[in-house]
């Protein structure tokens, strides 16, 4: 059986005795040994060696010149100077010259060193012996004996009370570190369920920053809106707009297939969350004819004429709709918050 070729102690324990061994055939063609060294032209012709020397020195000199060029560029070119360089187009003169001179200064050092090594340094191949990584049995026995002696002297195995309490202490002490992480952030609670929208909040057109009126929304146009009272410079603007951003479109009421969508609309004006239900990108590509919107990040596609259901892509559920109406001033207003959380789904979403 094949296992005879290697000593038993080298076999893994679970293999048993008869199987799982390594069997390899001998090399049929004997190793002829290292081939003789073939001299290079530089080894036998001093003129060629001189040429190599000059080439290396040229590289190093070129590097010096390039470094001077770098310093000169830094001083000469203003930081905002734009020049046209074929085929790169309009580029910053400073960036271009600094990069090229630095690149040449570095590359020439490397090219010089490598050329030096390849042509002038000895290329005679040398063999070095490898040594087994595993310790000899004697060393191993000594280490195991030392370990046993150390363990015995510590009484680690004998005094179990010490051992067990020590394990307990070491297991508990990292908990302090974990506790300290608690204030990294608040608990989720209901934060992801609510947005700034509430009954009576007017829809503010994000282009004009004026309240949106039904007559402003033409069929085929896509308008973005945010809740009244949210200021762009406000401290929590980014957090609020990340949930409250709204897409407004107008569809002929007869073309709205979803009954609830038609009821929550105002004269065919529908408001959906702009935040994709996949992983939260803002959706912004709108096809007027089909009323499809596409998320440019991962291509989830929603049909805004049919309850914004997902018709393609990785999103898992429809975009939440905001129920809207018109207030006494004739402006569009929200009739409440979204009924479900906006944005990506999460465990507690339900």
């Amino acid at each position, binding site marked *: 059986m094949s296992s005879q070729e290697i000593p038993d102690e080298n076999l893994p324990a679970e293999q048993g005795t008869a199987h799982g061994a390594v069997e390899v055939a001998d090399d*049929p063609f004997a190793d002829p040994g290292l081939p003789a060294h073939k001299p290079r032209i530089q080894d036998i012709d001093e003129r060629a060696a001189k040429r190599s020397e000059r080439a290396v020195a040229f590289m190093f000199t070129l590097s010096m010149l390039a470094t001077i060029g770098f310093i000169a560029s830094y001083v000469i070119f203003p930081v905002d100077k734009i020049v046209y360089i074929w085929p790169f187009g309009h580029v910053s003169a400073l960036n271009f010259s600094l990069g090229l001179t630095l690149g040449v200064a570095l590359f020439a050092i490397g090219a010089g060193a490598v050329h030096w090594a390849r042509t002038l340094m000895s290329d005679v191949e040398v063999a070095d012996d490898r040594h087994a990584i595993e310790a000899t049995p004697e060393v191993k026995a000594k280490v195991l004996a030392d370990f046993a002696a150390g363990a015995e002297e510590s009484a680690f195995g004998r005094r179990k009370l010490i051992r067990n309490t020590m394990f307990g202490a070491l297991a508990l002490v990292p908990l302090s570190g974990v506790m300290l992480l608690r204030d990294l952030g608040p608990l989720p609670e209901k934060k992801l369920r609510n947005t700034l929208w509430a009954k009576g909040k007017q829809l503010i057109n994000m282009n004009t920053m004026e309240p949106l009126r039904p007559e402003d929304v033409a069929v085929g146009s896509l308008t973005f809106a945010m809740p009244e009272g949210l200021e762009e410079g406000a401290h929590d603007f980014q957090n609020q707009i990340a949930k409250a951003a709204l897409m407004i479109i107008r569809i002929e009421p007869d073309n709205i297939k979803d009954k609830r969508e038609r009821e929550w609309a105002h004269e065919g004006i529908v408001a959906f969350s702009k935040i994709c239900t996949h992983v939260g990108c803002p959706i912004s590509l709108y096809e007027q004819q089909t009323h499809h919107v596409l998320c440019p990040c991962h291509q989830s596609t929603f049909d805004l004429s049919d309850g914004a259901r997902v018709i393609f892509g990785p999103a898992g559920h429809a975009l939440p709709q905001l129920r809207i109406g018109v207030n006494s001033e004739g402006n569009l207003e929200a009739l409440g918050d979204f009924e479900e959380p906006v944005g990506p789904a999460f465990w507690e979403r339900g």
Partner: protein
Amino acid sequence: MSTATDTQRKAPAGERVADWADGRLGIYSLAKANMRKIFPDHWSFMLGEIALYSFIIIILTGVYLTLFFDPTMSEVVYHGSYEPMQGIRMSQAYASTLDISFDVRGGLLVRQIHHWAALIFLAGMFVHMMRVFFTGAFRKPREINWLFGFLLFVLGMFTGFTGYSLPDDLLSGTGVRFTQGAILSMPIVGTYISMFLFGGEFPGHDFISRFYSIHILLLPGIMLGLLVAHLILVFYHKHTQFAGPGRTNKNVVGMPLMPVYMAKAGGFFFLVFGIIAIIAAIATINPIWNIGPYRPDQVSTGAQPDWYMGFAEGLIRVMPGWEINLWGHTLVLGVFIPLMAFGLVLAIIAVYPFVESWVTGDKREHHILDRPRNAPTRTAFGVAWITEYVVVFIGGANDLWATHFHLSLNAISWFVRIFIFVGPVIAFVATRRICLGLQRRDKEKVLHGRESGIIKRLPHGEFVEIHEPLGPEQLHTLTAHEQYKPVEIGPTVDKNGVERKVPALQKLRARLSKGYYGEDNQIAKPTAEEYKEITSGHGHH
């Protein structure tokens, strides 16, 4: 007289400094083992060097960038020298990145070197890993170093991600949002991790400064440690080499560290740095001034992560949007499965060395590299893995494929959904056949010699091509590889006729072993007898 000789022959200054250091650091013993250490030569051994040198370049340029970058999210109105952004609200982080690009002389260059070097670092690690994989360099004693390298690759991905998120531009912010959405998909803990990572709701005011300490301290610190350990092990194990005349499993043939590899490897650092500097001079990368500051309600089309995250991007794009709602909870499989698959595909390549050594049962050290063709199943598995990676990667850019090649985006997504499963299988089968074909060709060459291209006409009119026999060096090189015999389960009935229970794991191992080394899965090496039989024949080519 000792005093007289001391004054007569005073050691040169360099030697005296070395003596001083040796008395404190033991440098002579260190140099004895390492100064003339032999390294073998092969072009593929330099791929890891590219990764190493780009890492050094990243650290150098990164330190420079920290001098100017301001990692805070407090909002400012821009009044800097870049006209198109005048009066626009942005975070301090974005504004300071604009300043580095437009006001600090050379700042743009260093930023671009830093970013290009990061892309090349990851690419260097990837191809280096493939080199190690396909040549079997991960085998004992180098399995641990394979894991170190794998960890460096994974940590490199996250260091890159936290790095390109720092400027707080519209593109990177979108990537962070994607990450936050993926975190939310984790059952039970998702919302908590999100709240803790972002200090509240997304985007909050904390993540830039937190990513900053992760990017410049935590991850690079761990990576530096791993890198040093990786290099120490390379020195300790000594480098692998390909089979060849004079090259055995017990030696290492090549040229000494001093002077040849000091010049070659040291020079190569400058070559890599020089080329990256030139790339940074002529090719813009991450022009955040075109993209604009991040706002969670804005986005641009064609949003793509850096290349090494394209794999994650692809998984999330092509996954169907499965969601399970039960008992008031949502299991967001459409996002959570890609998140798990991301880790799983990476983990498979990490544990591969241990699987292979379990299948072969080989506990010996291996210092001679395999040619990929001589390990057909391993090579096929590697190619299948790369195919999976590439297919998903294509899915990560499905919008760009659609717009650039005028294809249907939906069709590309469906192609990817199917080829995630089919692609690796096709690649596996095809690669194995190619490997076996190449093995047959090697055998043919050994037995019948090299095709010389000379056509001879025999007296009776037949044309034959003259084959030149290979020299002993080539014969040895082509037949130096080892071939395993498949593992046998052995008789299922013991000598008393009682049925022996074979553990399922052992059966699996035997099946895998047959798949690796069975009759049809490797071409038996030519034997010396076969060779003699053919060559002793009367001049029959």
